[in-house]
């Protein structure tokens, strides 16, 4: 298959993309790698002509960070929880949307709406939904002004309210909110992609299955999922990559403190650490942390690709 004419052509097709990537992606990466090995590199002192030793100290410093373990744990947990949940939900919604006739147009529009809702609004609404307003929790003087919309719903159905994100809330409650928020955020994009994929599946397969009297669940697992596997692979792999870079969603719910007010930084992630170091004066540390994160994502993606190679049908 490989002939020289093809080779030449392929590179021509790739040329514009490669040139831009070299300039705006590869070059910054090279720069990042360089900074990661310059001890305590700082943009400002560098401007003034400071010299930096070349060694691994930035990496050591990152690992020594008291919150490093929890950053890593949060990052991994969020990833392995949100990617499967959001993918399965998006798949179910896309399949359901594809199967109905009445209201289909309307509902499709609804599921696109989040795209035109500004991210500022989304963060604020989630924080407001889970936010409890009150004082002196857990003492005899406890006061609750409002338990938040979600707690109102829970109490309406006879449950007990949960302190989701406020002072004194548990890690479990915090994580639950984060998972819900991140899944919500990820849904529209995944629905869009999967629905696009579903629309391209040949109706004949379903007709054939109908004649055979195949059950719905079986149609989903035996026909839809395999035929959709390239798109599923795409949303899962990019979902993992995005999941490992989770940060802004945490700011959206918890603000810059990245945790409930009495335990700031509890939900910090790797990218949160990188952000903090960048905004401060530790560009060297930020670069080192980025490379560590890169290593982790790379391993996970390679595993993903290996699995998808076996499972994806083209």
């Amino acid at each position, binding site marked *: 298959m490989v002939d020289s004419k093809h080779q030449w052509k392929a590179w021509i097709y790739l040329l514009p993309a490669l040139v831009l990537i070299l300039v705006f992606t590869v070059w910054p990466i090279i720069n990042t790698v360089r900074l990661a090995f310059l001890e305590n590199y700082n943009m400002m*002192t560098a401007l003034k*002509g400071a010299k930096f030793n070349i060694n691994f100290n930035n990496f050591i410093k990152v690992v020594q960070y*008291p919150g490093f373990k929890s950053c890593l744990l949060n990052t991994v947990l969020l990833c392995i929880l949100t990617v499967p949940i959001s993918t399965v939900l998006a798949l179910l919604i896309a399949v359901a949307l594809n199967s109905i006739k009445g209201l289909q147009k309307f509902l499709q529009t609804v599921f696109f709406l989040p795209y035109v809702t500004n991210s500022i609004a989304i963060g604020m609404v989630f924080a407001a939904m889970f936010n409890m307003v*009150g004082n*002196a929790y*857990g003492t005899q003087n406890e006061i609750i002004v409002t338990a938040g919309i979600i707690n109102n719903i829970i109490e309406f159905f006879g449950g007990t309210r949960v302190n989701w994100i*406020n002072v*004194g809330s548990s890690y479990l409650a915090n994580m639950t909110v984060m998972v819900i928020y991140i899944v919500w955020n990820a849904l529209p994009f995944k629905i869009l992609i999967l629905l696009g994929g579903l629309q391209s599946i040949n109706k004949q397969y379903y007709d054939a299955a109908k004649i055979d009297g195949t059950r719905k669940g079986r149609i989903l697992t035996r026909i839809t999922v395999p035929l959709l596997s390239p798109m599923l692979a795409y949303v899962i792999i990019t979902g993992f990559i995005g999941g490992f870079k989770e940060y802004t969603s945490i700011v959206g719910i918890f603000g810059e403190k990245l945790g409930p007010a*009495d335990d700031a930084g509890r939900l910090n992630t790797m990218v949160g650490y990188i952000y*903090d170091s960048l905004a401060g004066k530790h560009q060297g540390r930020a670069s080192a942390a980025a490379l560590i994160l890169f290593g982790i994502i790379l391993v996970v993606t390679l595993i993903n690709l290996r699995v998808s190679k076996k499972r994806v049908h083209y």
Partner: protein
Amino acid sequence: MKKRIFKAVAATVLAMTMLFGACGNNSGSGNADPTAAPTQGTVADPGKQDPAPAAKSLAETANFQVPAGGYDGKDVTITFYHTMGSSLSAVLDLYIAEFNKLYPNIHVVWEQVGSYNDVRDQISTELTVGNEPNIAYCYPDHVALYNLAGAVAQLDALIDSKETVAHADGTSEILGLTDEQKNDFISGYYAEGRSFGDGYMYTLPFSKSTEVLYYNKTFFDKNGLEVPKTWDDLKTLCQKILTIDPNCIPLGYDSEANWFITMCEQYGSPYTSASGSHYLFNNDQNKAFMKTFRDWYQNGLITTQTIYGAYTSGLFVADSGMKSYMSIGSSAGATHQRPTANADGSYPFEVGIATIPQVNASSPKVISQGPSVCIFNKDNKQEVIASWLFVKYLTTCVDFQAEFSMTSGYVPVLKSVGSNEAYAAFLAKADGGAYISALSAKVCLEQESAYYVSPAFNGSSTARDQVGSLFVTCLTKDGDADKIINDAFKKAVDECEYSE
């Protein structure tokens, strides 16, 4: 254009020499190290005889030196980054026009750059290629950051300059500040410019705010309550309020970090230091007041914004349900501490404003907030001089300070603004309803001698964040109080030292 870019590239790629120290300053030592002791300057210049050698040497060793002849009057464009809303930039435009009557060749271009942090982030990126503005709104920790690159002009030589500068209308002024002008600045605000540990002056105060105590005057009058002068008064008062209205939180405090830092200042116990070991706040005095506040919180006397989960001003102005009767917050946010007007324009209750409670009521201490301005050093010395002339104009122009303050709710940085006709008329209208901003400004001006500034260094903002979190943890966490407080203080110091 191309040449400029090339120069910028050279500066970036090489990044070898100091950006500005090398540009013809005759101290020769390239002394832009912000941590250098001020005495070094004296050594560099032993020949001079002067009654005040330290001050003199600062002016002579500052990283910006006024060239012979001072301002040359040629066309120059200067940029100014700020965070003003549209009504304030309208005031700014008005006074740029006034300024241009004196200096028609200085073209001022301003840019509204989001929030204070946005200004910092943008400038630190722009510094890497030499695109930074001439003048910027700043907080002390921003300046400490820019100083790592030696980018901010030390103002001492400019302040002391006696060069005459001619105006377009035939009048003239001296380039530096006259003694009158210096003394007209509210001293606590002016002192902020020298809070960087090396004695040099880096910033001029632009417009300021502080924290004040808002109280429900109608409620206080009705129940014969007195405005608290000390924290002890406050505790008794809160307990009394709780007996009158058991379903309330007597006091809401907006900012935990401000509360902590102000308590350190009031007790005279260490918080941070600009030089040497920076983080000094882990001490017994500070732990003691945290324990007291923990007790108050657990007894339902107080709350803060992050603990409460909503704006404490919202709690203060609430017309139904949970209420508070006192609120400590920014003096610039007075209009948010006023309840929504009734249909006839009257207010459900009258708001009173007072100085916040003190440890020692005879020597009050209140925090000073709000933006200052700094000037960036440039290859073209005339840009720096033009920037200085503009900054000097805005910060010393009584009319501007008066109008800006009336529009913004911030307080002017000059004492003499109080006698400005328009501003005096504004203050005279002060009341706890329609003219609440004037009332707030009045209280701020009356406590003029009480302003303190915290040391500014690289990491001062981390310390601030950490003590804010520490405050919340100490108040709310379940368990043994002493252990919680000890652990929280230790964690805060560890975090500060890690990000060193």
